[in-house]
C-alpha cells in the first residue's frame, strides 16, 4: 500500500533526507520510500516512482514529503518510526533559561567565528555568503548552481574587505591544517595549493603526503573562478596570500585550463611571486596531477618517489573496451585525456558505445541522489554491469577517501570487483587517499587488491595501467 504524507514547514538538509530515505527503504516490508522537500524536481521523482502526486496538494519547497510503499499498514507505521529517529536533529548543547536559541542564519552565529561554510541550495547561497562577509568572515561556498553574476559580486565585495571566497561549487579546502569539505588528512608542511578543481587538490595533497611532504593550506576557488566573467579573482587573491605567507615555500595552482586572458593574468601573477610557483592547468598538453607533484618536489629539492601501489596478482583478462567509472571530476578528466591520447575516441557519457570515462559526480547522475563519493549505489550497479558485459575489457574507477567521503567504500566495492575480475575483466583502481584518512587507506587498498584489482595512488599511473591493459589484451 502507498502512503503519502506532507509535513508543512518542516525543513531538513538534502543529505540528511537522502540518508533518511535510505533508512526507510531498508526498513522491513518497505518496497519504495522517498523523504524529500516538495520541490518541482522531487514531485517529478515521486510521480516517476508511481506515487499519487495529487496527494501533495499545494505543498512547496518548504514542506516535507514522506512517501512510503510497503506491504501493509504495519510496515508503513514501522517505517515512520524509523524515520523519526533518522530525522532527529543534533541535540543543542547548553541548557538553562539563558541559553540562546539556535541561530537560523549565518550572521546570527558569527560572533568569534572566522570562517563560514555554506552548503545551502544554490539560489540561497549568495545571501548567506554576503551576510558572512558583512560579519568579517572568510567564506567557503560548497553550494553549486549559484548564478555567475552573484559570484562576481561576491568576490568583488570580498576583495574590498580583504576576505576570501572559496567557491561557489568548492568542495575541498585545507585551512591552516584543518580539512574543510571533502579533504584528505595530510601532514602540515611547506606546500600551499590554490585550486579550482576539488579532486585535483585532493590528488595533489595525497601524493605529496605519500612523498613525505606536507600541505598546510589548500585554497579552493570554486569551479568558475577562472572563467572570463570572474577573472580568477579568488585564484589571484589566494596566490598572493600564499606568496606572502612565511611558512609556504612553494605554491601549486591547479585547475582545468582557464579562459586565455585569465590564464595570462595568473601566469603573470605567478611570475611576480617571490615564492616558487607550479602551475598545473589540467588539459594542457602533457600536464598531469602526478607531474605537477613531481615539479613541486623538485622545487623543494626532493626526488619524486614511487607512489604506493598494489598490483593485481592475476594479469590475464578478456580483450575489450575501457569503461571508466569515476566520482571525481578532475580525476575522470585526467583519465579521459590520457586514454584518448592512446586509444582514440573516449566518450564522456553513458551513451558511448566504445571506450568511455564517465564522471558520476556530474549533475545528470546526481538528481535525487547524493554525490558518488558519499553514496556508491549507482557506481556499484554500473560496475556490476560492466563486469558482466563481454564488450568491456578493462574497468577503471577512482576511490576517493578523506573527510566527508564514504566511511568504508572498499567493503562495498570489493564483492562487485571480485565478480568483475572473476568474470574476466581487469579492474584498475585510482585510490586517492592518505595514511591518515579515517577510512584506513591501506586497508581499503588491500580489500580491493584481494578482490582482484590493481590499486594505484597516482591517478595518472592508474590510467596508464588501464590503457596499457586495453592495448595488450589478448596478446
Amino acid at each position: 500500500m502507498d502512503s503519502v504524507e506532507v509535513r508543512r514547514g518542516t525543513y531538513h538538509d538534502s543529505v540528511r533526507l537522502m540518508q533518511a530515505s535510505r533508512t526507510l527503504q531498508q526498513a522491513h516490508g518497505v518496497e519504495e520510500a522517498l523523504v524529500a522537500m516538495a520541490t518541482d524536481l522531487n514531485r517529478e521523482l515521486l510521480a516517476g516512482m508511481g506515487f499519487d502526486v495529487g496527494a501533495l496538494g499545494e505543498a512547496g519547497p518548504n514542506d516535507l514529503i514522506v512517501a512510503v510503499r510497503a506491504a501493509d499498514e504495519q510496515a508503513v507505521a514501522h517505517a515512520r518510526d524509523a524515520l523519526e529517529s533518522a530525522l532527529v536533529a543534533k541535540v543543542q548543547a547548553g541548557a538553562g533559561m539563558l541559553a540562546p536559541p539556535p541561530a537560523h542564519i549565518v550572521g546570527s552565529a558569527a560572533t568569534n567565528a572566522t570562517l563560514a561554510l555554506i552548503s545551502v541550495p544554490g539560489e540561497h547561497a549568495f545571501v548567506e555568503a554576503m551576510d558572512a562577509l558583512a560579519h568579517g568572515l572568510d567564506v567557503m561556498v560548497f553550494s553549486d548552481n549559484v548564478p555567475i553574476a552573484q559570484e562576481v559580486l561576491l568576490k568583488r565585495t570580498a576583495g574590498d574587505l580583504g576576505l576570501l571566497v572559496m567557491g561557489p561549487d568548492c568542495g575541498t579546502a585545507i585551512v591552516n591544517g584543518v580539512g574543510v569539505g571533502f579533504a584528505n588528512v595530510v601532514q602540515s608542511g611547506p606546500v600551499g595549493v590554490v585550486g579550482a578543481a576539488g579532486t585535483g587538490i585532493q590528488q595533489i595533497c595525497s601524493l605529496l603526503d605519500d612523498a613525505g611532504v606536507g600541505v598546510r593550506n589548500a585554497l579552493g576557488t570554486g569551479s568558475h573562478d577562472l572563467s572570463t566573467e570572474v577573472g580568477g579573482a579568488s585564484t589571484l587573491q589566494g596566490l598572493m596570500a600564499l606568496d606572502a605567507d612565511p611558512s609556504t615555500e612553494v605554491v601549486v595552482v591547479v585547475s582545468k585550463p582557464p579562459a586565455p586572458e585569465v590564464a595570462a593574468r595568473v601566469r603573470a601573477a605567478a611570475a611576480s611571486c617571490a615564492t616558487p610557483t607550479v602551475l598545473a592547468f589540467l588539459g594542457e598538453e602533457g600536464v598531469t596531477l602526478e607531474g605537477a607533484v613531481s615539479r613541486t618536489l623538485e622545487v623543494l629539492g626532493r626526488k619524486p618517489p614511487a607512489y604506493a601501489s598494489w598490483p593485481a596478482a592475476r594479469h590475464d583478462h578478456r580483450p575489450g573496451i575501457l569503461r571508466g567509472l569515476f566520482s571525481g571530476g578532475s580525476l575522470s578528466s585526467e583519465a579521459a585525456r590520457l586514454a584518448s591520447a592512446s586509444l582514440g575516441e573516449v566518450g564522456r557519457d553513458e551513451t558511448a558505445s566504445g571506450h568511455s570515462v564517465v564522471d558520476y559526480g556530474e549533475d545528470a547522475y546526481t538528481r535525487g541522489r547524493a554525490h558518488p563519493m558519499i553514496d556508491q549505489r549507482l557506481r556499484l550497479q554500473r560496475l556490476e554491469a560492466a563486469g558482466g558485459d563481454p564488450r568491456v575489457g578493462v574497468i577503471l574507477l577512482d576511490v576517493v577517501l578523506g573527510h566527508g567521503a564514504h566511511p568504508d567504500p572498499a567493503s562495498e566495492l570489493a564483492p562487485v570487483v571480485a565478480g568483475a575480475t572473476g568474470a574476466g575483466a581487469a579492474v584498475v583502481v585510482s585510490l586517492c587517499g592518505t595514511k591518515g584518512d579515517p577510512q584506513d587507506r591501506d586497508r581499503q587498498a588491500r580489500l580491493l587488491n584481494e578482490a582482484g584489482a590493481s590499486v594505484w595512488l597516482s591517478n595518472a599511473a592508474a590510467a596508464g595501467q588501464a590503457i596499457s591493459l586495453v592495448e595488450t589484451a589478448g596478446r
Partner: protein
Amino acid sequence: MSGLERLLAAEPVVVTAGVEVLAGALESQSVEVHRTNWSPPAHGTAGALAKLASAPAVREANQIAMARLLAARPHLVDVVPAGRVVPGLTERTFLHAGPPLTWAEASGPMRGALIGAMLYEGLAATPEEAISNLAAGDIDLAPCHHHQSAGPMAGVISPSMPVLVVEDADSGGVAYSTLNEGLGKVLRYGAYAPEVIERLRWMDRVLGPVFGDAVRRSGPVDLRSLIAQALQMGDDGHNRNRAGTSLLLRTIGAALVESDVASVSDRAAVYSFVDSNDHFMLNLVMAAGKLTVDAASGVEHSSLVTVMARNGTEFGIRLSGTGDRWFTAPAPIVDGLFLGSFTAADASPDIGDSAITETIGLGGFAMAASPAIVGFVGGTATGAVQRTLAMYEITMAEHPSYQIPILEFRGTPTGIDAILVTRTGVRPQINTGVAGKEPGVGMVGAGLVEAPMACFVQAVNTLAGGVAVA
C-alpha cells in the same frame, strides 16, 4: 589580521549553514563549529533578498534609520483636546487603530468603539442612529498612524477626546495618544453603554484639564527615562505597566497637588483614577513610540519596520524605506489565557496600535525583563526569557537605554529588520490583550501573537523593487 592572513595561520572557528555532514567532519578534527538551523527564506522572497543583499544602499539606509530611532527623546509636555492639535482631525473625522479600513470591513470591537464615539460627540442620539450614519459614510475614517497618533485596541480618537502631547525638542517631532480609560467596559474594547460615554465626558471635563495642568506645571516628563526605569522594575511597556504608571504619578504628584485649575476632590479623583489603572502608562509609551518611529521613517531603501498595527480585521506593517505603503494580511486570532469562561471562539481578531511598543524594543521583545507577564499572557518565566532571546536574531540593535537586568543589562532587541524576518522565518512576538468579538463585551483574555509573515514578504519584495541592480 586581514581575512587572508587569519585564514592561513589562525585556528579556524567555523559557522555552518546547510548539510550536517560538513559540520560533523570539522568537529571530528577538534574544530569549534557553530551550527545554524538553516531553512529557506519565506516563500517568494529569494529573488528580492538576493537583490537587497547586493545593494550597499540598504545597509547604509538602515544605519541612518536606526540612528534616528535610537536618538529619539520623547517628552510628555501637555494634555489638550484632540481637535485642537491632531493634524487633519475634523468634526467629521474619526481616527482608528491599524491600517485603513471601512465601516463594512470593521469587526465587532471596532464598530462598537466607533458607535461610542458618535454618541460621545453628540453626532447620534442612539446606537442605531450611529450605525446608520456610519454605514452611510457620514464620518471619514483614517488610521491614527496617518495623523501622528496611536491608539490602543480600537484606538478611536474623536475631536473632543483629550490627548497626550509628546514631543522631542531636539528633532522637533510630536505624537499623540488618548488617555487610557482603564479596564472593564471601555470604549477601546468596543463598549458604548451610557457609563462608557459618561466616563469619556468626565475624562474630557476633569481628567484632561487637571492632568494637563499638572504636566505643564511639572515640566516635560522624560518618557525614555521613565520607561527605562520601569523596565528594570518588571514592566514590559505593553501589557505590564504598573511600575511605569506608579513612576508617572510620582513625577507629577507634587504638581497635581499644587494645581489650582480644579477642586481638591477633582484632583483627588484624578489621582485615584490613575492609581487604579495599571495600564495608564501604556498610552504614554505608545505616543513615545509613535514619535520615535516617525523620526526613523522615510529613509529610502531602509528595511526597518516602523509600524506594526492591527484594526481588528487586518494586520499591517510599514517600512522606513517604502514610504506610506501598508503591507497587510488578515489579523490573527490570539490564543492565550482567557478570563472566566471565555474561549478563543469569543475572541476578536487581533486589534490595536499597541504593537508599536514592539517596534521600539518593548512589549514582547522585552519579556525577559518582565517574567511576571506570563500571569497575564500565559507561558512560563523561562519561556518569557527565551522569547526575548529569539528576537535578537531579527533586530538591528540593542537599545542603549532599555536594558534587561537578567541578561546582564543587555539592551532590548530593537529595530525589526524585515529582511531578517523573511530570512530567518522568525516572526516578531507581540503580547496583547484580546477583545471580545461582540461589541461591548470588553476584554476576554490576553496572550501572545506573531506578526503574519505575509506582511513581511510583501514588504521585502516592494523594497527590492526600489533598489537598482548592482
